[in-house]
């Protein structure tokens, strides 16, 4: 059974439909990139997948062994975070908050996990630094470490490389790629179509609905893909 299945999903805000008739499924081990122009309903779809938004019609079905505790999420940064007085360690550890659990404090295991994720992303040295004093790339790594603390099986990323320079962007995609190789299911909304095609296994192209759904290879050869990737093909 797929981890997540969407059936005839219709999504909208206050009566205005932004995307209709979305049916697709995310299998264990997939690396899905959701692409499309601004306002095509990509982020809305992701919010629905994350249960942050209820669909107007249709349904999202979760496999029995996918609990909300298994989901990690790297959201777009909010203005609140830009000047937030917290250390990187505190931010990463907050990914371990026991959802629904009764224990009010972090366990030694949580702390170990947070340390391991920071180590993995090469930000152990920043543990006691203030989040607001980091560079954009470092902040994004800290938030990814937090998402990994929460993610057991699936990681959602909403435009994770917006505002990062090309070098950091490539590093970031490599990191995600490594996570995927280690068995993490990845679902990413991205504007970086070239990296999406290069790294991800499957592409979902949205424009008020699904324009294309298939492997990255098929996408490159499809009409939709050819137009969207345009003449700037890198490799």
């Amino acid at each position, binding site marked *: 059974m797929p981890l997540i299945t969407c059936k005839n999903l219709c999504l909208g805000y206050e009566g205005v439909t932004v995307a209709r008739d979305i049916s697709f499924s995310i299998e264990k081990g997939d690396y899905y990139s959701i692409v499309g122009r601004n306002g095509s309903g990509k982020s809305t779809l992701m919010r629905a997948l*994350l*249960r*942050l938004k209820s669909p107007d019609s249709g349904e999202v079905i979760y496999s029995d062994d996918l609990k*909300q*505790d298994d*989901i*990690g*999420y790297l*959201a777009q940064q*909010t203005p*609140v*975070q830009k000047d*937030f*007085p*917290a*250390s990187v360690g*505190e*931010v990463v550890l*907050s*990914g371990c*908050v026991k*959802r*629904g659990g009764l224990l*009010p*404090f*972090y366990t030694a295991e949580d702390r170990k996990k947070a340390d391991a994720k920071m180590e993995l992303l090469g930000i152990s040295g920043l543990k*006691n*630094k*203030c989040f607001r*004093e980091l560079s954009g790339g470092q902040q994004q790594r800290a938030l990814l470490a*937090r*998402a990994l603390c*929460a993610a057991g099986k699936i990681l*959602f990323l909403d435009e994770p490389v917006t505002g990062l320079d090309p070098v950091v962007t490539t590093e970031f995609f490599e990191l995600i790629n490594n996570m995927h190789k280690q068995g993490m299911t990845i679902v990413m909304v991205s504007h970086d179509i070239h990296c999406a095609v290069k790294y991800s296994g499957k592409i979902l192209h949205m424009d008020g609905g699904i324009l294309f759904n298939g492997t990255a290879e098929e996408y490159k050869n499809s009409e939709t893909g050819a137009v969207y990737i345009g003449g700037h093909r890198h490799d």
Partner: protein
Amino acid sequence: MIEYIQVMFSYTFILRALVVGVLVSLCASLLGVSLVLKRYSMIGDGLSHVGFGAIALATALNFAPMKFTVPVVVIAAVLLLRVSESSKIKGDSAIAMISTGALAVGILAASMTTGMNTDINSYLFGSILAMTKEDVVLSGTLSAIVIVLFLVFYNRIFAVTFDETFAAATGTRVRAYNMLIAVLTSITVVLGMRMMGALLISSLIIFPSLTAMRVCKRFKSVIFMSAVVSVLCFIAGLIISYFASTPTGATVVVINIGIYIIFALISRLLTRKI
């Protein structure tokens, strides 16, 4: 000097004011950090106006002031949050509407019964004489509850303050915790209102946390520093107002402003060095 202070604290009303003030300052400073970071500072201000309206009504109708005001302000807090969430009326306008509306109702109620005398003054700007023995007991109990709940839910309050969307996506009941913060704030506001004054109480929520954020870089140290600053400013304000015969609430606020400026200068100097 010490003898003078000893004499000062031999007065029962000063002791009561000290106990209630320290507890309220502590609660306000803890909650303040989260409120300021969530851009909810105005909720504290709005709630204090609602508190004024409620207390004036309670007096007019001969209800027990605290027992009437606490539930009214808690309900107002729930309403304010609801309205801010549904973006039909913008959050800040909603707060302005509710707070000025409550202020007007309060002034009407008070003028009908007492004819705009000193009572209004003490509601708006606070009175150190307002604390009865029951108030002290009630304040003690309620602030203990606020502090315990804050500590128990500290990690979740951090998660919800830092990133509501992430918290919601990973299964934290964000609305429940927002509600918890708002309800605890409303209790704190009502407790502190009569001593600090309806127009001044929200400064206890805002100043200490902003002061702490000037120099502290970890959430935990911001919370701790905010609590220390808040309590010390209150005690200093109480002592100075006693000797200088100034209104306590206003004195505490002015000291908070002074400390904020000092901290802002320190943070300037520190960043310049680096």
